[in-house]
């Protein structure tokens, strides 16, 4: 336990390699096995108790020391958006549906991996040679798209199998590019926190399932854990692009959501949650006192597991903190290592300063 005093959250080669494994794993909502396997392998040696619940959430506990410890739920969802095969049209061609929020306009021409054997395929796109002028102006809809595994490969998969983008993790100097950074960044952070749990709290880690289809795993995990406080670790879009790209006329992008390089994004409000102001204050104060950069995510749409957690039982004070990332829910996202490291630093510092007094003030 003394290691806690010496722990300085950092992103070294070990953490990067783990993130790479997590991002390259395939875990579309409802079939999170591959990520769960890595999570279990990582947290089992460190945690006091580990269990997998009926929906597939991994619940790992580390007990702290001292009186009146807060029971703090830390949640990170393991699942990612992706595809599910729906119809076998023979010769390796499959109709499919999307799982979670995906933009059908972004899919044509992308390489995919299908099923537990990661059978390679492609979401076929019509060659430009054969595309007419009228077609170029039309939006491609999901029902015109197919996943093509190549002739003779139909037998390697079955209806109901999930598919993901085939993008492999790349370390690009100060940045990383990968699929599923939403939310393997959160999963990797939470693994690190389980390994180096602050002793002043009981850390109740929930690696959740089915977030992308409606916060379903977190709903039951929060019921089971019944914590005093919940912190959700996720990844949120950074739309910090020039104003023309953000769809604005003026010289200023006013709808960036978050910005890369500006540090962890603390949530005030999204579609599903109004964060607990006591926790916002605590995280902001911690960041300012520790000299850790942070940003307030622009209030707006979107949602995290906090949406399900804070309404569970008699109400659970909740806050979300995200690593900003560009191009979320697409074939390849982009994030900054320093934002990830600062997120880990901020969450760790805020947890080490989290005591029951914070709840003695009324919200």
């Amino acid at each position, binding site marked *: 336990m003394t290691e806690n005093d010496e722990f300085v959250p950092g992103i070294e080669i070990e953490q990067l390699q783990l993130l790479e494994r997590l991002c390259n794993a395939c875990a579309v909502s409802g079939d999170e096995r591959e990520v769960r396997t890595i999570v279990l392998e990582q947290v089992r040696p460190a945690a006091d108790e580990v269990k997998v619940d009926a929906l597939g959430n991994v619940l790992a506990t580390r007990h702290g020391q001292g009186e009146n410890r807060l029971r703090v739920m830390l949640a990170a969802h393991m699942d990612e958006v992706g595809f599910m095969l729906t119809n076998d049209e023979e010769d390796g061609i499959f109709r499919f549906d999307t799982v979670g929020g995906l933009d059908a306009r972004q899919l044509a021409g992308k390489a995919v991996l299908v099923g537990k054997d990661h059978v390679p395929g492609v979401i076929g796109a019509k060659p430009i040679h054969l595309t007419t002028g009228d077609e170029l102006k039309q939006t491609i809809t999901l029902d015109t798209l197919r996943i093509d595994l190549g002739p003779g490969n139909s037998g390697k998969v079955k209806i109901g199998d999930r598919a993901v983008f085939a993008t492999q993790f790349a370390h690009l100097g100060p940045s990383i590019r990968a699929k599923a950074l939403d939310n393997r960044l959160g999963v990797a952070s939470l693994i690190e926190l389980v390994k180096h749990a602050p002793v002043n709290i009981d850390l109740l880690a929930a690696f959740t399932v089915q977030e992308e289809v409606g916060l379903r795993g977190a709903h039951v995990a929060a019921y089971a854990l019944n914590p005093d406080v919940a912190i959700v670790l996720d990844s949120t879009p950074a739309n910090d692009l020039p104003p023309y790209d953000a769809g604005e006329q003026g010289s200023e992008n*006013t709808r960036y959501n978050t910005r890369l390089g500006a540090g962890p994004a603390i949530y005030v409000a999204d579609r599903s949650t109004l964060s607990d102001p006591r926790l916002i204050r605590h995280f902001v104060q911690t960041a300012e006192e520790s000299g850790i950069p942070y940003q307030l995510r622009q209030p707006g749409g979107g949602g995290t597991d906090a949406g399900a957690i804070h309404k*569970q039982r008699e109400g659970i004070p909740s806050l979300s903190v995200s690593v900003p990332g560009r191009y979320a829910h697409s074939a390849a996202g982009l994030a900054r290592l320093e934002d990830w490291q600062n997120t880990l630093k901020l969450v760790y510092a805020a947890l080490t300063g989290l005591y029951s007094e914070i709840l003695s003030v009324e919200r």
Partner: protein
Amino acid sequence: MKDLIKKLVEAVSPSGYEAPIRQVIRAEVEPLADEVRVDNLGNLITRKGQRTAEGLKIMLVAHMDEIGVMATHIDEKGFVRFIPIGGVRPQTCPGGRVRFMNGAAGVIGAERIENLSKAPGFEQMFIDLGASGPADCPVRVGDIAAFDRPFLDLGKRLVSKTMDDRIGVAVLIESLRRLGTTPHELYFVFSVQEEVGVRGATVAAYGLEPDLGLAVDVTAWGDTLKVARMEVALGKGPAIKVRDSGMLADPRVVNWMVHTAESAGLPYQLEVLERGGTDAQAIQLSRAGVPAGTLSIPCRYVHSPSEMVDYDDVQHAVSLMLELLGNPVHLES
């Protein structure tokens, strides 16, 4: 009751930030109640009475939050971009004034409207606090504000921001004040975050596990020009809700309310609301299910900065509440 109503509507407490209104309500109910507490999400929960052999555990709820706006960006000229919190109607915004929790006030401006037949969207509006840039702007991202409009007493009719649902809060406080003996264990709950999805009532109902739930909230109106067709008018008494888009009121609860009003000779209307909901829907679906209903105060111009109610309706609502709560409840279909 008008002084109380004025005090309640003037508090600034948008969803999620109900501390100021909770303080006002607490000062009113603390001398009247057997027990007062605040839960994890900020609901103010007040108990009155102990359950007797012929009594029930009843959850009464009026929400204390209000709709508002939240800052998303301070632009280079000091204008504050914002999103709505709760069901703000964009056409009611331009020219309106808002007040932030820190006291800062501003006016809502809008871009030049090219198409006069279309109301501007929130992305075309901004709040002008008189600042010249981010440096001298007293607001930062994430700060929340409520609409600012003074209370207007027209005699029989009262107008203000936030009649939704401070008028329900006033009815509950006045009912608690005038309540005689009751066979019931009554919980007067002043809930948070109703306007963003009945979140406060959801957790309060889970915690209280009541036998019966009753919300007091405003409802829409059908008695002005070219308005949605609705058989509810101001001045014809409080409305007993039959359905809205979030709940089919328990018919036994509706009957209980109707019979009670008729026996006491109190005016009432029956309400069928096309769109909208109340905290009662959260109570109804709590745990294993709870018989639930709503007593509504007819209110014109709901979710605008000038919501109008009829003072007689408000007083009759209190009288009906006292009849409902002072006697044993027999739910019959």
